[in-house]
């Protein structure tokens, strides 16, 4: 088991009254598996993802339960140990490829940045070579040119590919993808999904795929978690959930899928 989330919860203390955003979430994720999280907006998907990636704000919130990655609790690990995992073992891509890259830094430097942090034994030439091969792996045409580009010179789809390349550069065990295709148009969406599936097969990386789009979740995931209002509603194998949903909430979600086959 790669990741085990036990009774995870978040309570915000940034206003007068404490606010409960996530509560009692337990699930596990095996190495090489694709686990989908689905739920309407505000159901706590992103907070759960950020917690696993160690990116929750450090102040004014209380974390409950445990999130064990390779047996270590990322919620209570000291910052230095956590940083060892970030970008090396646990990587994350985000919903907004347009703003997720630094506008004043060349793509190449951003792609190889994790190497600079985690693989100090690599020299500039080795880093560049690795970055170029990652850019080629995410099917970007002309990696050399992309390497020298700035973010504003690339389309949204290309930037999301760059984000994936930057995440994969250190060969992580877990890739968290928080609504990675929501901001993209439908054809690009399908390409990114295919790319993530290919990477999952080739690199044996486990993927936590988050979306509010059930058809995407069905297409890519092996297993699914359904979340609502910060709680886990149900979880199980994809076909099981989609064919025989147990909970009313899941049934409602499913009935809302437009019946258009692509």
């Amino acid at each position, binding site marked *: 088991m790669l990741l085990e989330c036990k009774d995870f919860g978040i309570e915000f203390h940034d206003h007068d009254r404490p606010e409960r955003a996530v509560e009692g979430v337990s699930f596990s994720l095996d190495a090489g598996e694709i686990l989908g999280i689905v739920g309407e907006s505000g159901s706590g998907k992103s907070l759960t993802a950020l917690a696993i990636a160690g990116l929750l704000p450090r102040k004014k919130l209380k974390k409950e339960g445990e999130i064990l990655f390779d047996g270590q609790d990322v919620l209570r690990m000291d910052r230095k140990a956590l*940083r060892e995992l970030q970008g090396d073992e646990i990587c994350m891509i985000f919903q907004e490829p347009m703003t997720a890259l630094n506008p004043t830094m060349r793509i190449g430097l951003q792609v190889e940045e994790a190497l600079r942090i985690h693989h100090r034994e690599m020299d500039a030439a080795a880093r560049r070579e690795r970055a170029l091969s990652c850019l080629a792996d995410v099917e970007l045409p002309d990696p050399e040119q992309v390497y020298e580009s700035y973010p504003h010179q690339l389309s949204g789809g290309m930037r999301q590919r760059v984000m994936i390349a930057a995440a994969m550069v250190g060969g992580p065990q877990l890739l968290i993808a928080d609504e990675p295709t929501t901001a993209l148009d439908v054809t690009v969406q399908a390409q990114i999904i295919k790319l993530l599936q290919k990477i999952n097969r080739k690199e044996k990386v486990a993927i936590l795929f988050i979306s509010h789009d059930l058809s995407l979740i069905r297409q890519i995931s092996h297993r699914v978690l359904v979340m609502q209002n910060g709680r886990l509603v149900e979880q199980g194998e994809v076909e099981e959930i989609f064919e025989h949903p147990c909970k009313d909430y899941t049934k409602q979600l499913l009935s809302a899928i437009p019946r258009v086959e692509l």
Partner: protein
Amino acid sequence: MKVYLRKAISMLLTLLAVSFIVFAAFEIIPGDAASSRLGSNATQASVEALRHEMGLDRPFLLRYFSWLGGCFRGNLGTSYSYHMPVAGMILEKIPITVTLTILSMLLTMAVSVPLALLSAKYANSRLDRAVYAGNQFLMAVPSFFLGILMTWVFGMVLRWFKPGGYVSYKKDFGAFLGYLILPSVAIAIPKCAMSVKLLRSAILSEANRDYVRTAYSRGLSTMEVLYRHVLKNALMPLITFWGMAVADMIAGSIVVEQVFNIPGLGRILLTSIANRDYPVVEAVILLIAAVVLLMNLLVDLLYRRIDPRLRAE
């Protein structure tokens, strides 16, 4: 390329306009070089005679264009009160004011950037609040007052330096630099306070951007995120301010030079205005105007350098 040609032409036009305004100002204020040279006891007739001899009785526009023609031929004229070529006089003073400005600017940058980074990293901590309070106070204190205060404390009470003990850069460059340190601190302090305030708030607003979260997700420490990602993006508003600060320091050194008894451009400008020595005043003011324009250009270039999105246009 075309852009730069257009910029060069507009800069030239601006300088022309400035030179005309200075000339016109001397037309309007009472007194001229002849009356100021002869003093208040001179007879009307002797002033008229000298005026004729100096060519000051020629019509205003004629004088302006003959001076302007001289400038275009590389001749800035001769000082009425010092009887020396203006170009040489100014060239001799430039190193003093420029050194003072460079020292002040280096101090401003070297102190404000780390202080702003610390203040932003520990935002709302006790350190940050102390820096904030210090800034609010120091931004409001004028340089000449700081100069007077420092002369008193370091010169008269602690006796670390001799007030008025300016050493020419030609005689002993080390001693010259040493004497300029306190004046440049006086000039730098208010600019530094303002820089810290600007940069701190720029860093804090940049820190909420998505790319910062991406940087953290790669395992960077807070300082690495600030230095490698945030600083460059947050520097934009500060560069504009620094550009203005340099121009301001060149022009504003007038008062501080007076306080510390430094014979730079400020000193020569003040005496020349008093003597109605317009060739000198013209030259100094045009120099200041040119620095302001060049700083604007430099800020523009730096913007392009930092933000690749501006380069395409």
